[in-house]
């Protein structure tokens, strides 16, 4: 086995490298702080691997081109931040409805509106879930480190292909701009799932039976792509039976493959009395607080960090709520995911938010002080 040399890498660059490793060969977007380095790096790297980079006229065109490239058979990704993410919502809904795989990266900055371009926040949690209209399913990953950014980007591309479903990588300014030491495995060692190339003889673009592969336009199969409700062939239908079956199938995909979509990790006491549930860069603060509270002071505390935030890891949080008296939810917003934690705690544990919304990270001391008050 050859040794892999550690390198210093930025979160945004890790996202771009992860995308290329996962076979992304098309990027279209409009640069926006704090996501710009993703576009910059893709502009440099894609031509080297035979890919295509296009700087579009605006954010909407960026996602539209990505959807088009994907229907054409390319693995495609775009990156943006809050203001651009708002603009992309309509087309994200279209990709969900038409079942076109694509990855949308949102490196969150302080909002609402143009907010503070260079300050971190976690204000787009609910927008990532419900930003586009209609009763849709969505997959959202939230990395806490440069390495997590790398492998969650790969997971996002692969799952997006497999489920024919847009996947959102919800980063934040801290993780996007942070540089840290990482060990990037050789490409050959990574399990990069290939989208199925096998076309069943009775192939229909929107088959009910399982996960029908997306057959690229121009490869000889004639089908229809629309945002309207449609039957198996892709042609519009208003038949109530077709409509309900289509929507159930869209949601059903994520339920059926929940185990492949849900990434969480736990550190701390085996039988905790208090737990922290968090995601993104705030995991870093929580881990530092756990080191002090559990490893140094032996308090019965634990940390459930969520790499997947949507579909919400309900089972994991429900199980945790059975064990503990209190769940603390630190977030860099005025309280978004805490509502879901509360919902799935079902009153079994007290759910306490810890919010910060001044453009600065929550510090380990803020979390530790809250823990100390509980144990005092």
């Amino acid at each position, binding site marked *: 086995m050859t040794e892999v040399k550690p390198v210093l890498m930025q979160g945004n660059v890790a996202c771009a490298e992860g995308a290329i490793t996962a076979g992304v060969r098309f990027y279209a977007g409009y640069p926006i*702080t704090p996501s710009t380095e993703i576009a910059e790096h893709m502009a440099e790297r894609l031509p080297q691997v035979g890919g295509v980079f296009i700087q579009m006229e605006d954010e909407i065109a960026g996602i539209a081109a990505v959807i088009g490239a994907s229907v054409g058979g390319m693995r495609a990704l775009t990156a943006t931040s809050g203001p651009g993410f708002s603009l992309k919502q309509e087309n994200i809904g279209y990709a969900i409805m038409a079942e076109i795989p694509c990855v949308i990266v949102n490196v969150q900055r302080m909002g609402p509106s143009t907010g503070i371009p260079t300050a971190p926040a976690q204000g787009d949690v609910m927008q990532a879930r419900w930003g586009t209209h209609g009763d849709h399913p969505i997959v959202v990953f939230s990395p806490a480190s440069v390495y997590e950014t790398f492998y969650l980007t790969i997971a996002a591309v692969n799952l997006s292909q497999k489920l024919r479903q847009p996947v959102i990588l919800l980063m934040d300014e801290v993780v996007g701009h942070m540089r840290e030491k990482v060990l990037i495995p050789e490409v050959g060692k990574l399990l990069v799932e290939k989208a199925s190339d096998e076309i069943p003889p009775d192939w229909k673009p929107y088959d009910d039976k399982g996960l029908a592969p997306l057959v690229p336009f121009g490869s000889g199969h004639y089908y229809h792509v629309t945002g309207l409700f449609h039957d198996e062939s892709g042609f519009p239908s208003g038949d109530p039976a077709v409509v309900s079956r289509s929507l159930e199938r869209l949601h059903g995909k994520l339920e059926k493959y929940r185990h492949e979509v849900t990434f969480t990790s736990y550190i701390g006491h085996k039988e905790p009395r208090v737990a922290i549930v968090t995601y993104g860069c705030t995991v870093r603060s929580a881990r530092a607080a756990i*080191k002090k509270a559990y490893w140094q002071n032996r308090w019965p505390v634990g940390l459930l960090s969520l790499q997947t935030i949507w579909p919400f890891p309900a089972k994991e949080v429900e199980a945790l709520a059975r064990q503990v008296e209190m769940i603390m939810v630190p977030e860099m917003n005025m309280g978004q995911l805490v509502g879901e934690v509360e919902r799935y705690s079902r009153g079994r544990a007290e759910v306490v938010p810890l919010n910060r919304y001044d453009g600065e990270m929550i510090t380990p001391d803020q979390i530790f002080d809250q823990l100390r008050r509980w144990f005092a």
Partner: protein
Amino acid sequence: MGSRQEILLTGSGGQGLILAAIILAEAAVDDNKNVVQTQSYGPEARGGASMAGVIIDVDAIEYPKVTRPTLLLAMNEASYRKYLPKVVPGGLVIVDSTFVAGPFPGDYRVLPLPITRLAREKLGREVVANMVALGAINAAAALVNREILKNCILQRAPKGSGEINQQAFELGYRLYHQGMEPDRGLSAQTTQ
């Protein structure tokens, strides 16, 4: 936790502080240490407040931001005033006396060095002041292996400027070792 070193490089946009932080962090990786580098800056590319942090540790680094610097570099007056109170007791503060007039209170280990002025006078290029500062920092705190750091400067420097950046780095070392009155004897050691 005792091995955690928090270095804060502060000044204004355009002084190359973020680049200096990246080079220091790359050298730390090559020197087999754990490292996280972060930055904070305003919307302006030049002239606004700029701050870059580097955390070097043998343990895993969780919280990535510098909160209590063990070493502060201040390349302008505003950042000197802003960040000085955050430095840990006994921490080292290196100040570019080209831009910071003082006063330098005795309860910190403040070391005023004419970083930018010397970059201009000895090397004819103010832009390499960041590498002079990096030399002085590493001379003072021995954060990473000197040769590894020097090599990282060469890797990162724009084509054709590797040599002058390395000279600037060495100038920083001499500046630190000669203390607050660097002009004394310095010309004898500088070939230019």
